[in-house]
C-alpha cells in the first residue's frame, strides 16, 4: 500500500493538466475546426492565433499593462508590509490586535462590493485608467496578506538577533536592511509570490479601473470575444499565454516555497 502513494499526486496532476491540455490543443486549431466537430488533437496545426496576438498591439499591450501594474503592486505591497509585519511580530502597542484583524478584514471585502465605489474614487482623484490606480487598488487585499505571511516568518526569527545587533550599536534601519531582511529572505519570496499571484489573476477591479491606456489582458479577452464574434481559437491562445508569466514565477520561487514555508510558523 505504501508503494502506491505516488498515485495520489500523479492522478491529481493529470486532473489538473487535462483542461490545460485542452486549452493548448484549441489554441493550435483554426476556429472552423473547433466549431466543426470534436477532434482530440489539432488536425490542421496552426500558429495563426499566436501570430495574431503577438503582432497586434491591442492584444500584446494587454500583457504589458498587466505586468506593469502587477509588478508595481508586488513591490509596493511587500515594501509597506515589511516594517508593519516587524512591528506586529516584535512589539505590543495600543490596538495592535484590533488593527491586525481590521487589516485581515479587508482581505474579506468582496471585490464586487467595491467595484463601483473604487471607480468613483479613482476617477475623482484623476487616476482612472492608469497602472498606478490598479496597483493601488490591489493593495487592498495584497497588503494584509503580505503582512500576515511576513509576520509569521519574522516570529520564527529569534528576538536575540535584534538584541545582539542593537548591543553592537547598529542603528535600527541598518540592522533591518543588512541583517534582518536577509534572515527572512525566503519569507519575502513567498509573500511576493502570493502578491504577484493575486494581483495577476484579479480581473474585476482591474477591469473597472481601466479603459484603454492600462487595459489588462484579461479584459482585452472578454471584449474581443464579444466584439468579433466567437473566436475560440484566438481566445484559447490568449488564455494559454496568460499562463506563461505565472509559470516563470513559479519556476523561480519553487525552492523558496518548499524551503521558505518551513522556516516560519506560517
Amino acid at each position, binding site marked *: 500500500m505504501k508503494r502506491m502513494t505516488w498515485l495520489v499526486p500523479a492522478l491529481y496532476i493529470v486532473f489538473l493538466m487535462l*483542461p490545460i491540455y485542452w486549452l493548448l490543443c484549441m489554441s493550435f486549431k483554426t476556429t472552423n475546426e473547433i466549431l466543426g466537430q470534436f477532434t482530440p488533437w489539432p488536425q490542421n496545426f496552426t500558429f495563426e492565433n499566436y501570430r495574431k496576438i503577438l503582432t497586434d498591439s491591442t492584444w500584446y499591450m494587454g500583457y504589458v499593462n498587466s505586468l506593469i501594474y502587477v509588478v508595481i503592486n508586488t513591490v509596493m505591497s511587500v515594501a509597506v508590509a515589511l516594517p508593519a509585519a516587524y512591528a506586529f511580530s516584535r512589539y505590543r502597542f495600543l490596538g495592535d490586535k484590533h488593527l491586525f484583524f481590521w487589516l485581515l478584514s479587508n482581505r474579506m471585502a468582496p471585490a464586487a462590493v467595491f467595484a463601483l465605489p473604487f471607480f468613483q474614487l479613482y476617477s475623482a482623484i484623476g487616476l482612472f485608467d492608469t497602472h498606478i490606480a490598479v496597483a493601488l487598488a490591489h493593495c487592498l487585499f495584497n497588503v494584509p496578506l503580505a503582512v500576515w505571511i511576513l509576520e509569521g516568518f519574522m516570529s520564527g526569527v529569534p528576538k536575540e538577533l535584534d538584541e545582539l545587533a542593537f548591543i553592537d550599536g547598529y542603528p535600527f534601519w541598518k540592522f533591518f536592511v543588512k541583517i534582518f531582511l536577509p534572515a527572512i529572505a525566503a519569507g519575502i519570496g513567498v509573500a511576493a509570490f502570493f502578491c504577484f499571484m493575486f494581483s495577476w489573476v484579479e480581473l474585476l477591479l482591474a477591469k473597472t479601473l481601466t479603459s484603454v491606456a492600462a487595459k489588462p489582458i484579461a479584459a482585452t479577452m472578454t471584449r474581443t470575444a464579444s466584439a468579433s464574434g466567437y473566436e475560440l481559437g484566438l481566445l484559447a491562445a490568449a488564455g494559454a499565454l496568460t499562463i506563461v508569466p505565472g*509559470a516563470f514565477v513559479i519556476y523561480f520561487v519553487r525552492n523558496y*516555497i518548499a*524551503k521558505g*514555508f518551513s522556516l516560519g510558523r506560517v
Partner: protein
Amino acid sequence: MSARTVNQKAWWLVLPVVVLVGFNAIVPLMTVVNYSVQETFGNNKFFFEGVKWFEMVIHSARFHDALKRQLLFTAIVLAIEVPLGVAVALAMPRRGVWASVCLVLMSMPLLIPWNVVGAIWNIFALPDIGMLGWTLNRAGIDYNFTRQPVAAWATLIAMDVWHWTSLVALLAYAGLSAIPDAYYQAAKIDGASSWAVFRHVQLPKMKHVLTIAVLLRFMDSFMIYTEPFVLTGGGPGNATTLLSIDLVKIALGQFDLGPAGAMSLIYFLIILLLSWMFYRVMTLGEDES
C-alpha cells in the same frame, strides 16, 4: 510565551500600511454606506431613507436564495478541497526533483487569471465540442451544463476544486516540510501506525497553515464572482447565481444603488462574522500555550 515588548512607537512602522489600506478601504466603504441609506432618482439628488433598504434586503426571497446557494457552494467546496489538498500533500515526495515538479505543476491553476479559468472550463465542458462534455455524452451520460442545473453545479464545483485545491496542498506541504526527520524516527521506534503519526505528529504541525488555508478558501469561495460568471453566467435560470453575481446584477445591471449598498454591507458582515468564528475555533487553545 509572548516576549513582545510594549512600544507605542511601533505605530510609525505600521503607519504606511494603515494609510494605504485605509485609503482603499474606508473611502469606498463609506460610499457604500452612503448608498445604503439613500434613495436616488438618477439626477444626482439623494434622499435619506434610513434602514429601508436593509429591511427590504433582509426580507427578500431573492437574497435568501442567493445566500443559501452561496452557503451550499462554500460548504461543498471546503469539504472537498481541504481533505483532498491534505491527502495530496501527504502523498507528495518530500524532497528532490519530483517534489519540485509536483510544486510547479500544481501551482499552475493558481496563476491563471480568473476569467481565463472560467473560459477554460467553459470550452472544456461544452457538450458538443469540449473534451469533458463530449466524453461524458459519448459515455451515455446526458450532460449539458448550460441547460441542466445539476450539471451546472457539478461543473462549477469541479472547476473550483481544480482551481484551488493546490493552494491547500501547497500550504499543507509547507507545514509538513517543517517537521524534523527526528520526529518520524521517534514515531517509528515507538511503533506508531501511520494514522497515529498523522494524528499526533503531522496534524498538529499543519494546524497553523491549515488555519490560513481554510480561512483563505472560505473567504475566497464566499466572494467568488468571475469564474462562475464566465462559466455559467449564473444560469441556467438562477441555478448558479451566487451572492456576488446577484449583487453585480442589482448594482450595475439594474443600477439599484440603495438595495445594492445595503446588500453589500450585509454580505460583508456575514463574511466577517463567519471568518471570525472560523478564526476563533481554529486558534482555540493557542493563547494559553
